[in-house]
C-alpha cells in the first residue's frame, strides 16, 4: 500500500529519515531503520572532520512552532565515515549518503567515496555557504548547481538526489538547473534567527540558523507543488511533517516520498511507524489502495 519507488530505488514506505537528525552514527541509523523508516539519509558529510559550531546550536521555538538549528555541519569527514555506512547498511533499508562541499570537485570526490562505501544513492546538500561569495548558498547559484549535478552524475552509477534550499525566489530555476539529478529533495531549512530578550543577544552561537518543523510546512508544500508543476522530476518532500496528513499533503503536492526530521523531537523515534499507520488509515477510509495514485493529485490544472 505504501511502497514507493524514487529514482529506481524501492522503499517499503515513503517515510525516510531526513539528513542531520539521528543519523551521524550507524547505531542510530539502524535503530531508525528498525523503527519503521522506509529509508535513511545520512548526516551531510564533507571532506574534512568538523566539530561544528559551539553551543547553543539548537533553539526550541515555543508553542510547537519548530526548531532553529545551526549545528555547523559537524561530521567525522568522509574518510572516517566508511564504517558508519558499512554498519548503517545492516539496518536493511536503503541508505542515501548526504554530502556537502564547497565546489564541484569536492562533491565529485565525496560522491565517489560514498558510492564505494555502498550507499544506494547520493543526496547533494546544496544549501551550505558558498565559498566564493559571502553569506550566499551554493544552492541559489544556477550555474554552480548545474555544474555540480552534472559532474556528479557523470562519475557515479548510483542515483543522485539534489536537495534544494527554499531561501530564494528562484527555486524553480534552480530545480531546472538540477535537471540531470534523478530526484529533487525539497526543502532544506529556512533561514531564521531568535533573540533572547532577557539576554539581549541572539540565541544561537552562529546567530543565524535554519528553521525546521511545523512552521515551515506551508513553505515546503509550496516548493514541492511549484517545482512539480514546472519540471518532470521525481520529488522527495521534506519540512514540518508531523503526522500522516502532513505526509499526504506533500504527496498530493507532487512528492513520491517524504523525509522526516524534527518530528522525532516532537513524537519520538516511533514516529515512522505511527505516521505510516495514520496514512494507511486515511487511505483505507478514502479507498485509496496505492500511494502513487495520490502523487501530485492536488495540482490544479
Amino acid at each position, binding site marked *: 500500500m505504501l511502497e514507493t519507488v524514487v529514482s529506481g530505488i524501492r522503499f517499503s514506505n515513503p517515510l525516510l529519515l531526513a539528513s542531520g*537528525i539521528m543519523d*551521524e*552514527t550507524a547505531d542510530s541509523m539502524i535503530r531508525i531503520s528498525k523503527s519503521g523508516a522506509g529509508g535513511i539519509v545520512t548526516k551531510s558529510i564533507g571532506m574534512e572532520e568538523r566539530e561544528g559550531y559551539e553551543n547553543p*546550536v*539548537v533553539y526550541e*521555538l515555543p508553542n510547537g512552532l519548530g526548531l532553529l538549528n545551526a549545528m555547523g555541519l559537524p561530521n567525522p569527514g568522509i574518510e572516517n565515515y566508511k564504517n558508519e555506512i558499512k554498519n548503517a547498511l545492516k539496518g536493511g533499508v536503503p541508505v542515501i549518503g548526504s554530502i556537502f562541499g564547497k565546489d564541484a570537485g569536492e562533491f565529485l570526490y565525496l560522491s565517489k567515496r560514498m558510492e564505494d562505501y555502498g550507499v544506494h544513492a547520493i543526496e547533494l546538500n546544496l544549501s551550505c555557504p558558498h565559498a566564493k561569495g559571502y553569506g550566499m548558498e551554493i544552492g541559489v547559484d544556477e550555474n554552480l548547481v548545474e555544474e555540480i549535478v552534472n559532474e556528479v552524475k557523470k562519475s557515479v552509477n548510483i542515483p543522485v538526489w539534489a536537495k534544494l534550499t527554499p531561501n530564494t525566489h528562484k527555486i524553480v530555476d534552480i530545480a531546472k538547473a538540477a535537471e540531470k539529478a534523478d530526484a529533487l529533495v525539497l526543502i532544506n531549512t529556512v533561514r531564521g534567527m531568535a533573540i533572547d530578550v532577557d539576554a539581549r543577544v541572539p540565541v544561537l552561537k552562529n546567530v543565524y540558523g535554519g528553521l525546521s518543523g511545523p512552521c515551515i510546512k506551508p513553505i515546503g508544500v509550496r516548493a514541492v507543488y511549484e517545482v512539480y508543476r514546472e519540471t518532470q522530476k521525481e520529488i522527495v518532500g521534506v519540512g514540518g511533517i508531523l503526522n500522516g496528513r502532513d505526509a499526504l499533503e506533500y504527496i498530493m503536492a507532487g512528492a513520491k516520498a517524504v523525509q522526516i526530521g524534527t518530528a522525532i523531537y516532537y513524537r519520538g523515534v516511533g514516529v515512522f511507524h505511527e505516521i505510516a499507520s495514520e496514512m494507511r488509515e486515511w487511505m483505507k477510509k478514502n479507498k485509496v489502495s496505492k500511494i502513487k495514485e495520490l502523487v501530485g493529485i492536488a495540482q490544479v490544472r
Partner: protein
Amino acid sequence: MYRVVEIEEVRDEAKDVKTFFFRDTSNPQPGQFYMIWIPQVDEFPMSISYIGELKGFTVKKIGKGTTKMHSLQKGDKLWLRGPYGKGFKIEEGKALVVGGGTGMATLAPLAEMLGNKDIIIAAKSEDEIIFRNRFKENVFFATDDGSLGFKGFATKLAERMIEEDDYKIIYTCGPEMMIRKMVDIAKERKIKIQASLERYMKCGIGICDSCTINGYRVCVDGPVFSEEILFSMDDLGRRWRAKSGKSISKEENHDIGEKSQ
C-alpha cells in the same frame, strides 16, 4: 525557549565545586538534567542536585562555561531549558548508591528519597569530596589517596560491601570507567543497576546524535539507563564520539583519560 532564573545562594562544596541554588517552576525527577545557557559564553548540560522548592546545580569548574558559572553570585541569572531525559526509577529492596566526583550531584536527590540504602561518595582525595555532610547515616567515603575513608577506587569498596550485604539495586554515576566497572560487577552478581551517563551533548533533545552510545541517546533515552540496556552497551567505557561525531577509543579520548576512575 529559555527561562531565566536568579541565583539565590552559592555554596562551596569542594575544590572547584560549587552549588548554585535557584527557584524555578519545573518539577524535575532525580537523574534529570537541564541545559544551562550563559549568554555569549556557553551552554552545557547539568544534572539537578537539589529538587525541592529551592533547586540546585552542583558544578565542577572544568572549562569555559563552568569557569564563568563559578564567577556568578547571588542575584546573577542563569538561562535554562529542561528538565530533560529520563531519571531514576526507584526499585524495591536495599540500594547501594555509588557516586564518583560530581556524579554524586546527580545521585544526591535520589539518595534522599531512598529508604533502605548505603551510599558511597568517592573522589580522588578528601578536598574533592562533595556532600560530606548532606547524608546523616550509612555514608561511606572512598578516596584514591586515602585522605578520607576507604583508600582506593569506589568500585573496590563497592565490591566489598556487595559481598557483605544483599543489595537489590545499584545506582551509580561518575566517570564512565567507574560506571563500566559497576555495570560489570552488577552483571556478574546479577544485581539490578541504574547508571546515569554523561556524553558530549549539543542539542539535549535527541536530534543531533552527538550524545549517542550504541544507538541510545543519553539526552532523551537516558541519561539514566537500566541493566537491560547497560549490559548491552558495548561502547560503555570503551568508545566515545568526538565533537565531530568521529568514533574514538579510550586511548584517543584525552578528556576521559584525565579523569580518575
